[in-house]
């Protein structure tokens, strides 16, 4: 078991190394370096000043050395400076993390709490009108762009309550706080919920076809016991394994949702950094996202080992 975890950790480091190289290179394919762009946008044309900036930013160094500097800095917690705000990248990112983390956690909670039960209902009542409705709605939610859903929600609040539930650093009341986080979380979580519902449904249907479910029925267990004791536990296993994918999926939704609701989180910050061509910020943010996704996957795999005796006792 320890062997397995060590192996996974080794692979994780390898993957993150790959991500860092890929991001680093991608951001340097751009025609013209950052100094050109800064100058173009600022409309300055003093070549000496430009050369100075290029040198300050280390852009005259060979690629390998630029990369080594970045990774070396990462190891010491030195993420470099933002081109735009000229503050340390870490200071910019850190305060935004809890905002996004809270939002993501709430959204995931919402998605699981609605997706799993509806998936089970849909599978147990397969081909009933309830199943049809749940399936059509889940597909519909998956078809709506998150940002549009966000805009519709905003529109509804404006029209019905006359308020805009957008971000406020210090919400006046608990209710406002809940609204401020809850509404975007539900908005972004709706798609994840639909995804989880579909996964749960197909997994549950698969499990209900298994021989051991028939065995359980042959013992004289009630349908409820068969469904919730014997089938459900087996059915959620594959759903657990997809939480890693789920997190990545959720992040995509967060990017646009934070933009729509004007929430100063990590996800929206990535878009801003890309718009501003703030490359130190972009490469560190992308690394941060990759670390989160890879870690979630690792945690899920380890958790899975404890849930499934077939894997726990083999290792």
């Amino acid at each position, binding site marked *: 078991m320890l*062997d397995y975890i*060590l*192996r996974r950790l*080794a692979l994780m480091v390898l993957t993150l190394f790959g991500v860092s190289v890929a991001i680093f290179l991608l951001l340097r394919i751009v025609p013209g370096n950052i100094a050109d762009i800064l100058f173009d946008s600022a409309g300055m044309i003093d070549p000496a000043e430009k050369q100075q900036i290029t040198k300050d930013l280390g852009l005259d160094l060979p690629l390998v050395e630029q990369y080594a500097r970045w990774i070396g800095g990462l190891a010491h917690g030195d993420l470099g400076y933002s081109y735009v705000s000229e503050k340390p990248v870490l200071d910019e990112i850190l305060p935004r993390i809890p905002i996004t983390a809270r939002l993501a956690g709430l959204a995931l909670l919402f998605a699981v709490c609605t997706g799993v039960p509806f998936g089970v209902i849909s599978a147990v009542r397969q081909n009933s009108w309830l199943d049809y409705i749940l399936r059509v709605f889940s597909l519909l939610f998956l078809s709506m762009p998150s940002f549009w859903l966000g805009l519709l929600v905003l529109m509804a609040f404006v029209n019905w309550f006359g308020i805009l539930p957008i971000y406020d650093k210090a919400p006046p009341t608990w209710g406002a706080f809940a609204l401020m986080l809850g509404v975007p979380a539900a908005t972004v979580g709706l798609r994840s919920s639909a995804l989880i519902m579909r996964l749960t449904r197909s997994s549950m249907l698969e499990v209900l076809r298994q021989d051991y479910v028939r065995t359980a029925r042959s013992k004289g267990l009630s349908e409820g016991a068969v469904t919730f004791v014997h089938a459900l536990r087996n059915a959620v296993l594959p759903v657990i394994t997809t939480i890693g994918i789920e997190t990545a999926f959720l992040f995509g939704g967060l990017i646009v949702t934070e933009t729509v609701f004007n929430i100063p989180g990590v996800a929206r910050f990535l878009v801003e950094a890309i718009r501003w061509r703030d490359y130190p910020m972009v490469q560190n943010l992308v690394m941060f996202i990759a670390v989160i996704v890879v870690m979630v996957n690792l945690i899920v795999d380890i958790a899975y080992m404890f849930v499934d005796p077939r894997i726990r006792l083999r290792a």
Partner: protein
Amino acid sequence: MLGDLTMLLDVTDLRKTFPARTGLLGNVIDRVHAVDGISFSIGEGRTLGLVGESGCGKSTVGRAILRLIEPSSGSIRFEGTDIAGLPASELRALRRRMQIVFQDPYSSLNPRQRAGDIVAEPLIVHGIGKASERRAIVEGIFAKVGLQPRQMSLYPHQFSGGQRQRISIARALSLGPRFIVADEPVSALDVSVQAQVINLLMDLQAQDGLSYLFISHNLAVVEHVSHDVAVMYLGRIVEHTDKASIFAQPLHPYTQALMAAVPVADPSIRRDKKHVMGDVPSPINRPSGCHFHPRCPMAQAQCRTEEPVLREVQPGHRVACHLV
């Protein structure tokens, strides 16, 4: 028979191991000894029945002989040539001479090919004949295995299990082989259809002098089709002789146990039940000494420590047991 010089196939000390567990750096920690040093030979027009329970390595033997699995060591002489180390180009020519029929009539045919094309494809691959000639050849083979030429344009799912097995046999026959590995060819078929396929295989042998390695877990079927029989247990041959001797006088305790366990379709003979206890051990963790000793009613101290070798105890009758 055994020791005859005009053998079609001569297998010596064949071994095949698979990695069972790999370490952090891809280093192999445990190995499965699927086939552990077995030797046998098959003469022209004869059938060797290879019997054993699941996991004894009998299917691995069949595939290793055709190099569908690369053997780990040992020699496989077919018509005098050792094919164990043969480069792929030379192996290809030999493929015309030796073929295989599989157990599962469903997965052994490509669902997207018509029956006629399945049988004709080996001819195309080996550049035999023009299209019209190939069609004639395929028609001939179809007739030979008891299928209608008009069925050539049907897809596999339009055939029953027994008919699919006939198509598999037709494909194997298309290149005119001398030797066929039949890997449990009737196990997946219904009882009433098994006889059709068994008779077909035996008729083909009578007509064309084919040789078979007939792999099966069913002792009765093996007895029916084979000239010689080899019994495998956990990667080794434990007994090997001609059919008459092995069924009349099984010497190895495992062979005896196997025969005692086979239910006989005759309610008037209710034999006394002395069934061997215990499960077949895992091929990864085989017992020391004689692999059968934990289940053997006659095991002695020697059996636990010392591996018995396969030796000729009577003319043409080889047994691997300390007590015989």
